[in-house]
Each structure stands twice: as structure tokens, then as C-alpha cells.
């Protein structure tokens, strides 16, 4: 499936707004990810062609950014903090419970395509440690506890 005409227009517009095609590469990657959840090879190549940059440059940039996904991710991406303040407040136990319930480790996606779990630090939620950031709108939740993990996965948090 190729990129929608609307998205291609927005990518061209980004080149205009961001000071040229090169400077717009990250924004293009973000827009693809916003519409498709992740950035596949075909979409990356199409965006590169639209901007008139080499796809290898786009590839290199995508590889640099930890939050540009080059593999399919689950419908809900959970960014769980593994930073110091969260650790001091029991983040390891939250991590263990979350990984046990989902049956996946960091960087993995559940078989049903529902969740992807990623470790990030720090989420800027140290006052709500242990903290996580969930979903497309990057909602901050916390303080989490192992008991709260079930509620989180049932959508109650």
C-alpha cells in the first residue's frame, strides 16, 4: 500500500516549512508513523523520493531515532521508564509483572498485535514514579504498582 496523496502533500509541505527536504526527513517519518503505526521500507522509499533525498539518508536518520519504529508495533505502545527515580520506587516489580502478563520482553510485541513494550528513561514523570507513557497521545500514568498493571491492561488507568 503506498502513501496517501494527502500524506504526500503534507510531506512536501513539511519540506517547505522545515527549511528544505533534508530538514523535513524526520517530520516525514513521523507523519508516516502517525498514519501507519510504523515505517516500512516501501513507505520510507516513497517519502525519500517525494522529498528528493536518497533513501539511504532517510534510512540512516530513521535508524538514529529510538522512537521511529522500523518494525510493526502493537496497537498500544507502552513506554515504561527504567530510570533512576522510578527504580527507587519499585519499577523493577512493575516491569516484571508487565512482562509476565504480556509474555514479552522490552522491544517486543504481543502475538495478538495488541501491545508493544519499550523501556525509556526518563519520562519526565519522576513525581509519579514508577511511571509509563501509553498510547498515541503519550499519556503519562503513574505511580504504577504490580497490582495496577492488570488495571492498566484492562484500560482502567
Amino acid at each position: 500500500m503506498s502513501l496517501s496523496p494527502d500524506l504526500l502533500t503534507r510531506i512536501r509541505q513539511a519540506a517547505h516549512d522545515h527549511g528544505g527536504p533534508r530538514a523535513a526527513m524526520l517530520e516525514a517519518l513521523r507523519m508516516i508513523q502517525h498514519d501507519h503505526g510504523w515505517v516500512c521500507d516501501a513507505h520510507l522509499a516513497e517519502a525519500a523520493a517525494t522529498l528528493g533525498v536518497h533513501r539511504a539518508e532517510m534510512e540512516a536518520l530513521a535508524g538514529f531515532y529510538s522512537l521511529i519504529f522500523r518494525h510493526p508495533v502493537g496497537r498500544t505502545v507502552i513506554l515504561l521508564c527504567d530510570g533512576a527515580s522510578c527504580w527507587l520506587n519499585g519499577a523493577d516489580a512493575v516491569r516484571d509483572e508487565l512482562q509476565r502478563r504480556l509474555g514479552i520482553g522490552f522491544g517486543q510485541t504481543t502475538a495478538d498485535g495488541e501491545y508493544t513494550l519499550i523501556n525509556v528513561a526518563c519520562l519526565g514523570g519522576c513525581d509519579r514514579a514508577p511511571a509509563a507513557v501509553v498510547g498515541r497521545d503519550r499519556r503519562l500514568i503513574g505511580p504504577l504498582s504490580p497490582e495496577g498493571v492488570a488495571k492498566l491492561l484492562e484500560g482502567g488507568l
Partner: protein
Amino acid sequence: MTDLPLTGRARPDRKPHTLAEWRALGGYAAVERARAMAPSEVIDWVEAANLNGRGGAGFPAGRKWRFMPERGTTPGNGPNYLIVNGDEMEPGAFKDRFLLEALPHQLLEGALIAAHATHCDEAIVLIRDEYRPGIAAVERAIDEARNAGLLGGLHIRVHPSAGRYIVGEETALITALEGHRAVPRKRPPFPAQSGLWGRPTTVNNVETISLVPHVLTLGPQRFRALSRTEEGGTKLYGVSGRVKRPGLFEAPMGTTARELIERAGGISGDGTLRAFQPGGGASRFLGPDHLDTPLDFGHLARAGAMFGTGMLIVLDGSACPVGLIARHMRFYARESCGWCTPCREGLPLAAKILHAFEAGTARPEDLDLLHMTAAEAGPRGRSFCDLMGGAMAPLASGLEMFAAEFAAHLAGGCPHDKTHLSGGCPHGGTA
């Protein structure tokens, strides 16, 4: 409001104000005032206010702005650029999140004033991806201000980023905005000489910029007098780690850790203070003997420490300092941009050794290795940028302060009962 200029107007629900609400609270009067002044006069005020940058290094904002050339005085075409740094990712830091989400119009006012003072026709607010609520709030504020004709010709936009701590380092940030992998550049030339696309550029932190309107509203003397020390203004301090009610606290510059920890409900865990980091993950540990040291850039530099972001991480007597340093090192190792060898190779090695200490598998010579890494790579060491020096701050000071702890770990693993770390949230979390 005047003793809490930065946060006093925030809504209790932390939601951003509409433009109308903000104007009803006196919003944009500061911008009007600044525009009635010559740019150099605005800089005079910011200098007299003694506003030091809040992004970590504490460089005086006025002096930084003074380096920016007037329009038409530099060779070549193109504008001066103002960059607002909202990449906040330092462990322990959560202040800019609040200022972006809850007070976007305050930030925009500050950016308009800073752009006026530094002859900038373009401004970019870089915000990390995890702060999407902040991105949305600032974008909306910009739209509202544009529609109301308040931008005065300034082209300003948000640049949402996509992870990687190094993006927050100012020269790496400039490289990122140009569309390259965010690798730091050599200074000099400083951004004011050659920054974004080779043009004069000022980079300031979100908190620094958010304070600027208050210099204009209060005047430099009253702004300065908000502080208890030489360094002007209030500070948005934060306290997290082993305290009962972690949070943000706006207080006069020079407030002490004792007062801040008290406002955070006191120490949790065993109730005793073992140590604290005054300025986020990349700052040196201080012991209880520094509970009454005024927390600002000057006092902490004289104490051989650093103020950094002013976000305290507190360690109680029952939590393991070696484990804490290991968590920090793992973070910095992961976030190394990989450009220079000491950092790329040294940080993962240090992290690995620290985890071996925790697991009880470290050998005596590992301690020497840690000491050597800290000595070779500390501040002003051999790395290309300050990421590695920052990473060494907790390690170097921790090796000194917690020597007995390191020795105890050598003798057979972590001596601390870690059940408190797996027993859920110790400060009454319900979730």
C-alpha cells in the same frame, strides 16, 4: 502571584489556558512592553536581572543574547534563529514537561521577547516525542497567538523530536534540526556565531524562556530580589526518588535541600537521608552535610558539585547507592551518540561492571577499572561532548562517598534488602 511568577497562574488541572484566559491574567503585556524597548535595552534588563540559563550549565541569558548580531550585519543571507530546548530527558527532570503542558502561552511570550532581543525572525521549539500533550499545547498557543496578530512577524513552529537524549545537547540539536543524525559539533564556533544553517543562533531552555516575561513585568530589580542569592528569579525545583510526596516546587533561587525535601513530605523508606543529587542524574552526590547549602549554580560549584537542572534525586538509608549509579550508567551508555570512543566504549563497560557489583560477581580489579574510567573521563576529560562527563559525575562522587558500599558489594553482592523496591510504590501510590 509575584512570589510564584512562573507557576502561580497555572490551572489546578494542569490544562493550558486559552489565549483569552491568559490575557485575562495579564498575558502578553510583557511582550508589548519589550517591543516598546530597543533590543539592547531588553538585554540590559535580563542581564541586570541576573537570569542564568536553566538547562543545566547556568550560562547568563543576557550575556548569551548579547553575542547575537543585528540584522544585516553578518555576511550572507538568512535570519538569526532562536531555539527553545524542550528535549528534557535527564533522569530526575520533569519541570519542562509542566511548563510546556500547563503554561504554553508563558513560553510563547518568552520566545517572542527573546526573539525581539536577539534579532531573530525565526524560532523553533524542539519538544521530545514523549511530551505530546506539551507539543499540542504549544502548537495551539502559537495558532491562537498568530490568529490574534500577536506574533509580530516571527515565524515560530514546534519541531517534535523522536527520542535520544543527545538531541538536547545544543550543538547536536542544531545538527538534528538540519536533518542529520544528532551528533554534537565542536565549539567554537559557538551557535551565536554559526548555528543553525551557519546562521547566528541562540539556544535556551524552556524554563529560562518561561522566566523571561517576568523580567519585563517585574523589572530587573524585583525579579532579582525573588532570589535569596546573587542569581536572579525563582527556580522550578523538583524532588523525586525516596521522598513521600515527590513533586515540583517553585521557590526562590537558593532554597535549600532541607526545605525542599520537607515540602516533598520528607524522606521515605527508612526515613534517613543518605545522599542526594541536586541537579538530576548527571550531578555529583551530596551528603546530609549539604542539606543547608543554598541550591544555585554558584554555591554548588563552590561546593565542588553542580546545580544542573535543579531536580533533586533523593536516596534514603535503605536504598542501594550502587544500584542507583548502575541505573544512571545504563541510561547514559544507552544514550551515547557513539561519536567518540571513550564514551561509546567506556560507558557500556562501566555499566556492565556496576551491574556485576550488584549481582555480586565483581572482582577487586573491577573497582580499579571504575576509578580509572571516572578519572580519565570526568569533566574536562577526553570525550567530545559533556554527556560522558555528566555520566561520570554520579560515578566519581559515588566511588568516594560510598566506598564502603562498593567494598561490601565486592564481598558478596548487594547487602541491601531490596524488597522495598519490589513492594510497590512506597509513597502511597494507589494505581
